[in-house]
């Protein structure tokens, strides 16, 4: 057992923290909320230059071959600074899916371009059916000679409006088990018949309605196997969930730090707010929640990275605990800031609003707890 990060990883963390603090301040976060694209191409380029896009890819694809826990570190720091943009879609979701389940040709084609920052990708899974489960996949892909033809509507799809390529989760076969008959396609976002319309969300995080009308995709663009794509989804979402959890930990710690500093500074009734025991208890509880989530997430992430069977349950646990704790911590943070914390101009709100977005990713607590209940034998 070794619960320390390596020196190289510690350096990565410091570098990421410094870089993001400088390059992604809250003014930029606010601008990008209103920005049509939702990301900064300059920043994107710089991140690629730092090697972040290819962090966990093999060197032959332009990556730096660090392990999954290094990506976790990066995500923690991104969460602390609320980095907007398609890093999560491109690298965490699509990058991991191709890395774990793509063919050599696909890896060569896409990982290399991701690593260089040349393409943005979008993970196109959820639908109006309102679930991250396999049962929600209804958008059909039907074989037609050497192609498949995709028709239907996807919803809540991050960054589809700026994506060059998409990984689209489709239904290719009906059947008793919804997990069967799911197939994933690499789809050129410029294909005729695709429209992507960003929806206003509480986090302004560019979730799109994506419509597919007779969109043709070559058979060769399947990731994983025909009808067996759900395995790829599961594997990808395990990793992505831990990245979302640790991103949230970063955000939570940021709000704890920010609130702690504020109450030490803000004087009412002749003493700092920090001197009020009730506020101290709120802070103590916030710290407990943040810390337990961090530790649980590290373990779950390590298991997911190692491909261990226990990852499935532990990741669901971490994500569910995140849903409970992120909201709690930012809610208290706003409350302790008082009225100023409820304004659009204050940073607390940026975090507060993102807690809802994070909750919606990869399963809410009811969904996850039902999974956990099964896993613990119920």
């Amino acid at each position, binding site marked *: 057992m070794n619960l320390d990060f390596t020196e190289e990883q510690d350096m990565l963390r410091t570098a990421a923290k410094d870089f993001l603090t400088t390059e992604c301040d809250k003014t930029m976060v606010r601008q990008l909320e209103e920005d049509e694209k939702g990301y900064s191409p300059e920043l994107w380029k710089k991140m690629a230059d730092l090697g972040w896009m290819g962090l966990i890819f093999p060197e032959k694809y332009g990556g730096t071959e660090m392990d999954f826990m290094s990506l976790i570190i990066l995500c923690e720091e991104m969460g602390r600074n609320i980095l907007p943009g398609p890093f999560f879609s491109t690298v965490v979701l699509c990058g991991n899916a191709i890395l774990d389940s793509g063919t050599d040709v696909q890896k060569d084609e896409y990982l290399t371009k991701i690593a260089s920052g040349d393409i943005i990708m979008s993970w196109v899974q959820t639908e109006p059916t309102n*679930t991250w489960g396999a049962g929600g996949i209804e958008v059909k892909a039907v074989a037609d000679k050497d192609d498949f033809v995709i028709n239907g509507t996807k919803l809540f799809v991050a960054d589809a409006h700026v994506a060059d390529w998409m990984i689209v989760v489709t239904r290719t076969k009906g059947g008793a088990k919804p997990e069967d008959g799911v197939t994933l396609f690499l789809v050129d976002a410029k294909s005729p018949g695709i429209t992507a319309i960003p*929806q206003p969300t509480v986090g302004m995080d560019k979730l799109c309605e994506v419509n597919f009308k007779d969109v043709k995709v070559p058979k060769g663009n399947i990731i994983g196997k025909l009808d067996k794509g759900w395995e790829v989804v599961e594997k990808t979402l395990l990793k992505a969930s831990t990245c979302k959890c640790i991103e949230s930990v970063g955000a939570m710690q940021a709000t704890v730090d920010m609130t702690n500093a504020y109450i030490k500074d803000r004087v009412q009734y002749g003493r700092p707010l920090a001197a009020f025991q009730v506020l101290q208890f709120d802070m103590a509880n916030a710290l407990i929640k943040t810390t337990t989530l961090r530790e649980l997430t590290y373990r779950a992430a390590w298991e997911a990275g190692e491909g261990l069977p226990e990852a499935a349950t532990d990741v669901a646990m971490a994500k569910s605990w995140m849903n409970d704790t992120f909201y709690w911590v930012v809610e208290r943070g706003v409350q302790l800031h008082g009225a100023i914390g409820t304004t659009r101009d204050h940073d607390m709100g940026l975090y507060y609003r993102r807690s809802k977005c994070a909750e919606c990713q990869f399963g809410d607590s009811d969904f996850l707890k039902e999974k956990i209940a099964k896993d613990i034998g119920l």
Partner: protein
Amino acid sequence: MDFKWTPEQEAMKKDFDDFFEEAMKGKPAAWVGGLEDMFSEEGFPFTKMVCSKLADKGWLVGHYPKEYGGSGWSILEQLIRAEAAGYHHAPTGDIFGIGMCGPTLIVVGTEEQKKEHLPPICRGERYWCQGWSEPNAGSDLAALTTRAVRDGDDYIINGQKTWNSGAHIADWAFMLARTDPETKRSRGISYFLVDMKSPGITVVPLISMDGSHLYNETYYDDVRVPARNMVGEENQGWAVTRMTMNFERSGVGGFAGNMADIKELVQFCKETKWNGKTLAENPLIRSRLAQLAIETEAGRALAYRIAWLQETGGMEAIATTAWMASSGKVYGSELSQRVAAIAEQIFGLYGQLIKGSKWAPFSGKYIAAHQMSMGGNIAAGTSEIQRNMIAWTGLGLPRTI
């Protein structure tokens, strides 16, 4: 003990209900019914229109004495109106003029002040805002530093106020300024009525987390206020302030609003099918909505008690029930927050969509309400201040501040 309304009150209830049912048909999209909506660009004309109709019927400010334009209602009739309005999330004018400034004037205002201000309030023609908090005087209101200096028949006011709900639409403000800078804290403060059109007043919007505009900063730059606009004695404004804070806090409207929300959500759950089952079949959702209904009724029962005690105990009861009013406030605002949070949760992935997305349930009303609810736990005395008050005045525990 008897919880029945009289036949007259039952009839009144129905009249109110019919009125609001009809009036609210024209409400703007995603209307939550908080002050944010009432004072928004889109909402304020609607608010004025509804309030004007209410005033025509004598229902806007029914509980003021008839001589000043009220209908002489008892607190119980007021309760019935508040409950009906709350249930329909209807605008009922500004809580500041009607609920705080007006009642204060009735008790301690001069006859001239009453005659000048109460009738336009009752007619829904004059909107008020509160000018109390300052950047360094929030919960600790007595730390305020805005100055008022006597100059002939006027006072000249200088300073900055903040969190002034509706200052951008208000005609008048009731505000606090320090008239004796030598004495400390709560002594030396006076209570003024200020025309918001006075030269030297600048209102700067403070936009809320969800993008709505309720709060403002108000800058006073040599604002001249006639001395007759002082309420109570010079330097005695703190006592007036305490009184103002305690009026009309049964909170029944909020609980009625929750009832309507729960009803709306129940209907949604019955009609909405995801993954092959209606939401209404989900035992977790059933349990949560039932819990909200329970907590709403428990709060409503408390609100009735507060109204009853104020009805039978008069002005004195306002002080002795202050801890109950604080209880109702903190209980109610935290419950409203849970209602919105649970609605969002029920919507699943749709819960994150806001106004402007065609996919947003109820046009994003609940997620907006959720964000606004944060302010509900802070405005008009934070939940912490309310719990302090309950401990000190309801339980006789020592003051910690």
